[in-house]
């Protein structure tokens, strides 16, 4: 299986999936084979004769190509460029000379990190380990040259893809050294650079995936094609949890191109030669559904949470003596946030090909191992018989860590005996669940002479952890018997383990930065027919809003400036203070006057190991909340690529504002009321604010970048609206909260 790869191509045109149809050219199909370890595998771009492969990740060829196997999903966050920079830094090659390919779901790729993407953790996790991987290759190349020339390795150095003799004039390109390098000892502790020696890290290197993305040649999951493939449209249950009792597809089966109409555990799949044929046929299928979930309504849930006695509350944090300290002026406020869908621009899709007891998957995903596990279980085949190929992701924000569309494709492929690509409609995508949880949190605090002496948070939200597939998260090494037992008992285990369940629900609320001597945080989980999931910034996406709104209310109650009030409570928190001071300075807080009717709001959070402070300038015009400018100061430690960090902040602000202003998934009688972008509103060009950014350059190793700047924006916006018009909005989406406030005032929109 070590046939030389097809001829060298530019970064984006590389054919990392062997069964793909490249352009309009011929199919290249290559049979699946068992590797030595009974692992389903296919030839990879790095299978090149004579290449030097010091590890699974790096390949150097005799003709000086450098290939890097990326084990992270490129979903827009720029990880492909960031990781290539880490490799380039230690390997001493140009970033744009590295050919990056997406690693398949093979065990060798889990050597330095999980082969999954999330938690803003890719650069954090790879900052040392991936540089060590590259440094090992560099060390072996230098050792090879030392052997070749009979000199000491210490007299040699690597630069620009060559090993160079410091004193003399000899040098050799890496490609000339591959044979000798292969025989060198793999260093156990490769020496990586100190910060002052960085030549690549910290530079605004251009994205290496831009070119393919502006020419339309980047291949997303939806663009992939294999021989003999079919397309499928899914008819999902109209209400979550419902199953098919019967269906009538007599008409559909007679329509052009239709191959079959198949019942699956997740609804009815209509399989046809072409998508448009499947789509037309699906419209003629009638399904009778079980009605198990009744009339779940998010409005009813709100009322239940408001009335709840929180009998199952778990104490997450309990400092000092809250009960005694909660006296004097006690302020109480309830904050709410709705369910949210992720709405990536590329609707969920998956291509699967089941042959006997093997399954090959092509799908954008945040964890190939999760898909392997889920598919293996669904088809009752071995996990190692599931091979996952990961293309570019057209957005994800957490959503593609769930295997639902992949399972559908696998079931349908098994049924029709051909590769099946399931493509969800936008409505499928919006309604299929795994939402950011709805939440209801009651905050209380005591103010004595302007000081917060006690604070409590009683949080209620659906547990994200309880809806996770614990079996899929377990390492491969866990024996099937134990795996099965854990899967069968996961919900009960989580219910009995407060720590596990509470981490995501109360992050940002149980570990905010404010000094309060007496504090208590409780968490009460609840269940609904919806499944919940991580959604960009996860618990911070609502807790940032809750904590920062409440602190603002306390500041106003104490008749103190919101920035000054925060400074007082963050005196012992230098990194928090630094971003707060920076954003106050850049936004002209307390210095420059804003136009009449425009207000400033501030918020500061720590999330994913980074510190983000924002000031939002907002106003209300004819009843519509308008955001004019957003300032953001971020301390993410070393910014590996400052321009891509800035891009993530810009995106996070717009993503966070979309949710803060308009985002909500609501259910009435079990049905999701949103479907497409007319009912699930996205921020557009004309609504997006001017965004100014300052990165604080600190001595710390990298923190997360993709999510932290989402967390403060809703709170900063709510605080700005209060400053602008004196209305405290405690419920997201804020525009709805404002509309309801207006209606109560009897002041119709102008």
């Amino acid at each position, binding site marked *: 299986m070590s046939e030389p790869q097809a001829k060298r191509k530019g970064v984006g045109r590389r054919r990392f999936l062997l069964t793909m149809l490249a352009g309009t050219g011929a199919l290249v199909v290559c049979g699946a084979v068992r590797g030595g370890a009974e692992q389903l595998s296919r030839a990879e771009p790095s299978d090149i004769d004579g290449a030097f492969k010091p590890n699974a990740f790096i390949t150097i060829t005799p003709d000086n190509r450098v290939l890097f196997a990326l084990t992270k999903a490129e979903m827009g966050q720029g990880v492909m460029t960031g990781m290539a920079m880490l490799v380039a830094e230690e390997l001493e090659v140009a970033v744009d000379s590295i050919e990056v390919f997406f690693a398949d779901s093979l065990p060798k790729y889990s050597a330095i990190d999980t082969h999954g993407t999330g938690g803003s953790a890719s650069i954090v996790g790879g900052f040392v380990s991936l540089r060590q991987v590259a440094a090992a290759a560099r060390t072996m190349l230098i050792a090879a040259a030392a052997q070749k020339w009979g000199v000491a390795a210490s007299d040699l150095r690597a630069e620009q893809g060559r090993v160079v003799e410091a004193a003399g004039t000899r040098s050799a390109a890496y490609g000339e050294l591959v044979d000798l390098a292969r025989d060198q000892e793999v260093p156990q502790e490769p020496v990586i650079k100190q910060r002052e020696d960085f030549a690549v890290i910290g530079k605004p290197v251009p994205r290496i995936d*831009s070119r393919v993305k*502006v*020419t339309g040649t980047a291949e997303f999951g939806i663009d992939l094609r294999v021989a003999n493939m079919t397309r499928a449209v899914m008819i999902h249950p109209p209400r979550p949890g419902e199953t098919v009792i019967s269906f009538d597809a007599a008409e559909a089966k007679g329509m052009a191109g239709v191959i079959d109409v198949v019942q699956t555990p997740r609804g009815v799949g209509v399989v046809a030669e072409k998508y448009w044929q499947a789509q037309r046929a699906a419209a003629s299928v009638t399904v009778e559904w079980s009605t198990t979930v009744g009339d779940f309504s998010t409005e009813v849930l709100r009322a239940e949470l408001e009335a709840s006695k929180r009998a199952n509350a778990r104490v997450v944090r309990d400092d000092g003596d809250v009960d005694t300290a909660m006296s004097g002026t006690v302020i109480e406020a309830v904050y709410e946030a709705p369910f949210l869908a992720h709405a*990536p621009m590329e609707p969920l899709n998956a291509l699967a090909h089941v042959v006997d007891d093997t399954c090959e998957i092509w799908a954008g995903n945040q964890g190939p191992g999760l898909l392997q596990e889920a598919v293996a279980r669904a088809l009752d085949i071995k996990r190692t018989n599931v091979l996952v190929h990961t293309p570019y992701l*057209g*957005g994800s924000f957490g959503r593609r860590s769930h295997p639902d569309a992949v399972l559908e494709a696998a079931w349908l492929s098994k049924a029709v005996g051909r590769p099946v690509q399931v493509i969800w409609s*936008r409505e499928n995508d919006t309604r299929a669940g795994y939402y950011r949880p709805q939440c209801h949190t009651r905050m209380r605090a005591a103010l004595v002479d302007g000081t917060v002496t006690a604070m409590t948070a009683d949080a209620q939200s659906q547990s994200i952890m309880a809806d996770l597939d614990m079996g899929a998260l377990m390492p491969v090494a866990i024996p099937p018997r134990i795996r099965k037992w854990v899967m069968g008992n996961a919900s009960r285990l989580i219910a009995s383990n407060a720590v596990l369940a509470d981490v995501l629900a109360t992050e940002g609320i149980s570990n905010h930065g404010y000094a309060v001597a007496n504090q208590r945080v409780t968490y009460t989980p609840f269940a609904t027919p919806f499944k919940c999931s991580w959604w960009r910034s996860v618990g911070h996406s609502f807790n940032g809003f809750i904590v920062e709104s409440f602190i603002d209310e306390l500041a106003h109650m104490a008749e103190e400036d919101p920035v000054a009030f925060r400074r007082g409570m963050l005196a012992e928190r230098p990194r928090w203070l630094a971003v707060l001071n920076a954003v106050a300075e850049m936004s002209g807080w307390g210095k420059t006057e804003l136009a009449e009717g425009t207000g400033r709001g501030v918020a500061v959070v720590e999330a994913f190991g980074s510190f983000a402070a924002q000031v939002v300038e907002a106003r209300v015009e004819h009843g519509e909340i308008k955001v004019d400018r957003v300032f953001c100061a971020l301390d993410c430690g070393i910014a590996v690529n400052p321009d891509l960090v800035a891009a993530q902040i810009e995106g996070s602000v717009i993503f966070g504002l979309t949710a803060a202003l308009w985002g909500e998934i609501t259910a009435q009688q079990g049905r999701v009321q949103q479907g*497409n972008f007319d009912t699930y509103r*996205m921020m557009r060009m004309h609504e997006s604010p*001017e965004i100014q950014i300052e990165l604080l350059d600190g001595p710390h190793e990298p923190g997360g970048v993709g999510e932290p700047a989402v967390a403060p924006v809703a709170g900063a916006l709510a605080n700005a609206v209060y400053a602008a018009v004196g209305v405290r909005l405690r419920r997201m989406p804020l525009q709805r909260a404002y509309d309801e406030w207006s209606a109560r005032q009897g002041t119709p929109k102008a």
Partner: protein
Amino acid sequence: MKLKVNGEDRDVDVPADVPLLWVLREELGLTGTKFGCGRALCGACTVHVDGAARRSCVVAVGDVAGQAITTIEGLGSDEKLHPLQAAWVEHNVPQCGYCQPGQLMMAAALVRKHPQPSDAQIDAVMSGSICRCGTYPRIRKAIHAVAGTPTGAPESGES
């Protein structure tokens, strides 16, 4: 049915009411044009028909037979990028990149009509295209860079 796509004559055998988007993607293999919403709400499927930006997900292929259809594959090439594509690269515009073919086709139609668009003209046209990654500030910069106009420039006077 005869189509003229990116300057080439193409024959397709599909019913006249099939959306152009799926003809491009599945019959002609031009997958640069993206499916996002199916209802002309997001702009990911934008192509040019006789020079005008159209949402290919709601255009019946039969209605554009014989007209000049341009997709992202025809806007520029890897060897010779359209100035807007070059500006997109220069300003690190794409994140996930899924909406960008549609954004670029919208922007190309914009600068053809308004070679030096104001911010208001950019807003009016580009607000039809959703980017979930939030690349709008960079799209605006890239368009201004190509047009040679500063952000905040007054109306050019064209309509």
